[in-house]
């Protein structure tokens, strides 16, 4: 791509989805930031600027309904949509039921996370030179173990729904021409996941434990609870989110640190830096690159009138590089003050797992910085996964001189 080339919103967006843009979509986002809200040929609107995104995430005239023609027909599919794509009041009720159980379990978990990270790295302790695949060895197993423990899902079942999660996440990407075979496969995976979750729910109904899933099914009949279909949709959401987001936060974070050795050295010497550093990763290279919304009324966004009933493509990762909001937007600044990034979205749908994701990433990155001597990227850029929405490396091979105990 040359800088003189003029690209339309359509071209920019479809290039973003292409696999050859995966390792660095940011030049495309930079071009998007030059555009006001723009209607693309499929009728959806491209929204990239920070101010516009922040504003619409907090606007009452916005719905989480994606207006996605490819979405499975709720009448046919065996699962309703999760609260991720629902609006108030049902969204608010489901979200509250989840938060009430989820948050207290996450608070006070740091010591346990420390232990988990410690033992995952201990398996590779080496007094001499060695190599680590940070995705397979830490970034993936850490959040997966945590979400399985929280929900009370047996560890040995992990590969089953790890596979579900991988396939279903690919289905989140906007596609220009839906492939019949792919849609069929997705439906099959979805139905297989539903069968699996039904079994799990039955099991927990018979023998409840001290876990989140059991807590979602209180024995007191007077307590508000998730209905069976909502319960399944919520479980699927938490499992997939637990598998496919934090992994990218940790992997993108370490990749960024290896490309910014000063920041890595600072983190090694001052672990307290982890707090703002992880926020900066969420800005600089966020695990969730884009989301979607629709308008319920005519609404002016960035000086453009967007009519009621429009589907919006919300480019969170582009807004995170908006020079109107972030000084030196393309630079990684580990102690960036007032970091109003869009990495966790915003408004009523602000990431439910933000607290957990932050803790996991802070602890994992600090441990890597402390324990690895002279870590180096084996390949730059590393190989990326297909996904454009939940974007991150497939593998992140790091060679080192020594991995400390």
């Amino acid at each position, binding site marked *: 791509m040359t800088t003189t080339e003029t690209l339309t919103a359509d071209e920019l967006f479809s290039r973003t989805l292409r696999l050859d843009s995966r390792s660095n979509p940011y030049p495309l986002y930079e071009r998007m930031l030059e555009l006001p809200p723009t209607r693309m040929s499929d009728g959806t609107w491209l929204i990239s600027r920070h101010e516009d995104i922040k504003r619409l995430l907090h606007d009452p005239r916005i719905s989480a309904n994606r207006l996605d023609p490819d979405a499975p027909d709720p009448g046919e599919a065996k699962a309703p949509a999760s609260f991720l794509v629902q609006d108030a009041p049902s969204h608010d009720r489901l979200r509250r039921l989840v938060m009430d159980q989820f948050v207290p379990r996450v608070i006070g978990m740091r010591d346990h996370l420390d232990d988990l990270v410690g033992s995952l790295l201990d398996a590779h302790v080496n007094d001499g030179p060695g190599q680590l695949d940070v995705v397979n060895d830490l970034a993936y197993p850490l959040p997966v173990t945590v979400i399985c423990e929280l929900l009370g899902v047996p560890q040995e079942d992990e590969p089953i729904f790890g596979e579900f999660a991988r396939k279903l996440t690919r289905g989140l990407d906007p596609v220009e021409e839906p492939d019949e075979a792919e849609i069929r496969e997705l439906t099959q995976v979805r139905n297989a996941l539903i069968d699996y979750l039904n079994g799990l729910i039955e099991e927990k109904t018979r023998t409840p434990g001290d876990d989140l899933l059991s807590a979602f099914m209180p024995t007191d009949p007077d307590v508000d609870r998730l209905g069976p279909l909502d319960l399944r949709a919520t479980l699927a959401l938490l499992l997939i989110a637990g598998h496919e987001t934090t992994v990218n936060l940790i992997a993108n974070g370490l990749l960024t640190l290896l490309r910014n050795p000063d920041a890595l050295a600072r983190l090694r010497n001052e672990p307290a830096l982890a707090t703002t550093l992880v926020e900066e990763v969420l800005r600089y290279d966020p695990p969730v690159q884009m989301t979607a919304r629709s308008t319920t*009324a005519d609404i002016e966004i960035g000086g453009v009138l967007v009519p009621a009933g429009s589907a919006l493509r919300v480019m969170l990762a582009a807004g995170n590089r908006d020079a109107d909001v972030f000084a030196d937007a393309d630079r990684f600044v580990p102690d960036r003050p007032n970091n109003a990034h869009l990495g966790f979205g915003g*408004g009523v749908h602000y990431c439910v797992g933000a607290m957990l994701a932050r803790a996991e990433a802070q602890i994992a990155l600090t441990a890597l910085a402390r324990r690895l001597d002279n870590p180096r990227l084996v390949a730059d850029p590393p190989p990326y996964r297909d996904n454009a929405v939940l974007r991150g490396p497939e593998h992140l091979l790091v060679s080192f001189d020594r991995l400390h105990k």
Partner: protein
Amino acid sequence: MNRIVIVGASLAGLRAAEALRDEGFAGELTVIGDEPHAPYDRPPLSKAVLSGWLSTDHVTLPRLRDVDATWLLGVAATGLDLRERQVRLADGRRVAFDGLVIATGTRARPWPVPAEAALRGVHVLRGRDDADRLRADLAAGPERVLVIGGGFTGSEVAGGCRELGLDVTLTHRGAAPMSSALGGTVARFAADVQRKAGVDLRLGTTVSKLDGTGRLHRAWLSDGTAVDADVAVIALGAVSNVEWLAGSGLMADARGAVCDTTCRALTADGSVADGVFIAGDVARWPHPLYPGDLVRLDHWGNAVSQAKTAAHNLVHGGHRRHDELPAFWSNQFGVNLKSVGLPTYGDEVMITQGSLSDTKFVAVYGRDGRTVAAVAVNAPRQLDGYAELITAGTPFPPSINAPDGPAYQSIVDAEFPQPLVAAVR
């Protein structure tokens, strides 16, 4: 400009001091406060402090920077001489200034009968010391607490008492708690919330007499009934601390001290008093979004932003307007309430999301075909969107069509006791 004096050492005073330094003022800075305490945060006093979650040792305001000021605390300003450019203090001292920031705030409106106010167990709640005394009385486990006045402070106190498991009677002159700030239509939800929480709520009722020998033991109400109570909290609103400005020539009365949109103090003839600025709860000024009457706000956020604007204009001789959209919040009875704009300016109201009966809703206020305010109860996350609508002067009723909106738009009278009360809360 070599010497700047700030009168008032609470939120607005402290933030003004910090902002003056941020703006580059390098001269001599003096902050005068009548309380002996370093600047502290007031919102927790009627919430976490009463319920015992937080002690008043922990309400000191964080310092955002070093201000290098002389702090004259525990000594009130008693007079202002604009010709000599001096502030007079209660101990006889005089402090000279080139620039002055007036941030003396307000105080609780006292019970009108001094002998009754002096009964043990009768409290007001404005400062740290008030909160400590009231907390001690509540912690001792009184038989019943009488809260006189159901505005925000009164309602928060009643909520704190219920949290402590205390019996509470709340008397309120209006049709519903907080009716003068929110209008009777919207405030109705609060009556339901309070009754459900076990408050003995007496609406349309005032207290005629507080009775007791040494200690309060009974109150007589306007409906002829009596309430036995050993603790009473007078929550009848606030009066401005302007007495020290008497004779100064500034335009000031019990409603506040008047400044222009750029925070410059005005004299009684309406001209600008050179180098004198006003910020925080004591300020009354013409808000560009709400023409027709002067606005005074007892809002935390306003104290901060008005202090900054005043400091900027004082240091640079600038003309920055203080036109930030008013906003406040309250927590009570497990309910989160947030407001943007000026509800009291409106005369019509429409529910745009949720419903009053669910205690989860957004209400939008309008006047003369313009959207002027929004109040969100247990629904804070979309209020920024409403704030933009208000700032943009969107027609009323606005078209929202929210997914949790009502099936039919219904615009009703907001039911403010008197229209156009400029002071809210």
